[in-house]
């Protein structure tokens, strides 16, 4: 009995190690990919010198950041200054634990997976507000306040956009949501839930403080926003947290709207040999969807300018939330009538 328990715990620890390791590697290369994509969109090359095609650039950046001096402002609130990046980083990393990457591979297959993701994404706001406040700097404080109100406002729209998915799938368990999409001919909720998908995409951009909603770290106004005063290791934590947040948002969108690790049924109908492939193969499909969404992030960043703050708020409250409510009502009515 104890051996079983130990094996179980060992298995879980192994899974956690694999997921964290792979996620960190993906995060590192997400930064590389972003720089490449935006570089080419701006008719530049992006990183190219370190290693072949600059492939070792993220590792060089990481090594540099982790060996830099950790500067703490003299009037900072030290305990909170220390803990803020950790809160931010941990809350985004914890969200990875409920994401199913392929059939049967998920660290914690809990029934309230989607709610857990909301909870974790709302906690990231603490790291941001606290880092802004404890730095005792005007730029950081303004960035923190902006980020907090932005994250709270858009979380409502995001949660409501996913309610449509919950109604259609009839479950909060992420694996069940993926399986529920198999019943639809297109194999993804993005088609019947196009309004929800649109709202989710916009609020995912705002939730992760990315352009065109990157007001909390608007370089031209606030230096670097809430992490102006951070350097070295702690700055790296914020950076990793931000990109892990993007990875998590892309994964949620892949799971809830794009069919997770599955492909539409007509494709497996055309190519029956796909069904013989091992389960881990489908992680590639999942990753392709995640990276497609990440590419959209970069694409938008390379294209759109920053919104004004009142525009941001009015988009959130006056456009996205009413649309999301409409989406909920329509979805529920269709579900009852059909």
């Amino acid at each position, binding site marked *: 009995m104890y051996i079983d328990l130990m094996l179980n715990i060992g298995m879980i620890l192994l899974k956690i190690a694999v997921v964290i390791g792979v996620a960190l590697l993906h995060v590192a290369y997400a930064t590389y990919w972003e720089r490449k*994509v935006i*570089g*080419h*969109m*701006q*008719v*530049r*090359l992006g990183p*190219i*010198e370190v290693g072949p095609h600059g492939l070792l650039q993220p590792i060089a950046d990481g090594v540099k950041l982790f060996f830099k001096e950790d500067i703490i402002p003299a009037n900072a609130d030290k305990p909170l200054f220390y803990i803020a990046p950790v809160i931010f980083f941990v809350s985004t990393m914890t969200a990875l634990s409920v994401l199913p990457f392929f059939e049967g591979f998920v660290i914690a297959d809990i029934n309230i997976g989607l709610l857990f993701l909301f909870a974790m994404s709302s906690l990231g706001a603490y790291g941001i507000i606290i880092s802004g406040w404890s730095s005792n700097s005007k730029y950081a404080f303004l960035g923190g306040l902006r980020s907090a109100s932005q994250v709270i406002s858009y979380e409502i729209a995001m949660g409501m956009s996913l309610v449509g998915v919950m109604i259609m799938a009839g479950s909060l368990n992420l694996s069940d949501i993926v399986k529920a999409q198999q019943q639809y001919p297109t194999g993804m909720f993005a088609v019947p839930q196009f309004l929800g998908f649109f709202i989710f995409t916009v609020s995912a951009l705002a939730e992760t403080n990315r352009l065109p909603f990157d007001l909390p770290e608007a370089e031209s106004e606030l230096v670097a926003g809430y992490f102006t005063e951070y350097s070295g290791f702690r700055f790296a934590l914020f950076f990793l947290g931000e990109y892990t947040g993007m990875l998590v948002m892309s994964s949620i969108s892949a799971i809830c709207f794009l069919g997770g690790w599955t492909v539409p049924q007509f494709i497996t109908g055309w190519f029956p040999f796909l069904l013989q492939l091992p389960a881990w193969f489908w992680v590639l499909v999942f990753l392709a969807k995640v990276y497609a969404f990440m590419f959209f992030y970069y*694409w*938008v960043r*390379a*294209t*759109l300018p920053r919104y004004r703050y009142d525009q941001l708020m009015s988009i959130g409250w006056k456009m996205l939330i009413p649309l999301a409510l409409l989406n909920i009502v329509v979805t529920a009515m269709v579900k009852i009538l059909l």
Partner: protein
Amino acid sequence: MTAAKLIRAIFFIEILKGLALTFKTMFTPAVTRRYPKVKRPVQPGFRGLHALAKDENGKMKCVGCGLCGAYCPSKCIYIYTSDGKDHKKVVDRYEIEVLRCIYCGFCVEACPFGAITLSEHYEYSDYSREPFYMTKDKLLSNWDKHFAGEKGKRYFRDFWRPKSEDFIGYEGQAMFKGIKNEK
């Protein structure tokens, strides 16, 4: 709001146009030059690191008149001369603080003999200030490095032709005439 405007607002036509544009430019070749590996050719007449010219016999052209130092707007040229044998002027030290130089080229224009030149060399960054204080020896060796042979001749022929080459003065003018007559 007209129907066309409404449709444009609902489907984000402007934003989609922008996205299409960036997507298109993603597949155009980059215009980046990878500098240390690919260098742009230096245009003739470029004003780079200073050098003191030598004549055919390998002797310094500078006679220590001090016109360059007098013209220099940032006052970064120091010349010390002394009385040598036969009361000939000897240039003891000829020094340039390169970090203060603004590369205006006035010294080159001022020099009657084409002694001070600005070479085409521009990659001379360093970690300390010492190497940027050019002494006479360094400036002369710069000439050997960057203007040896045909290059130096071309420099004077095409661009910084010294005033003394075309100087036609009246008889009484001592300095330039004498040199012209020697040739």
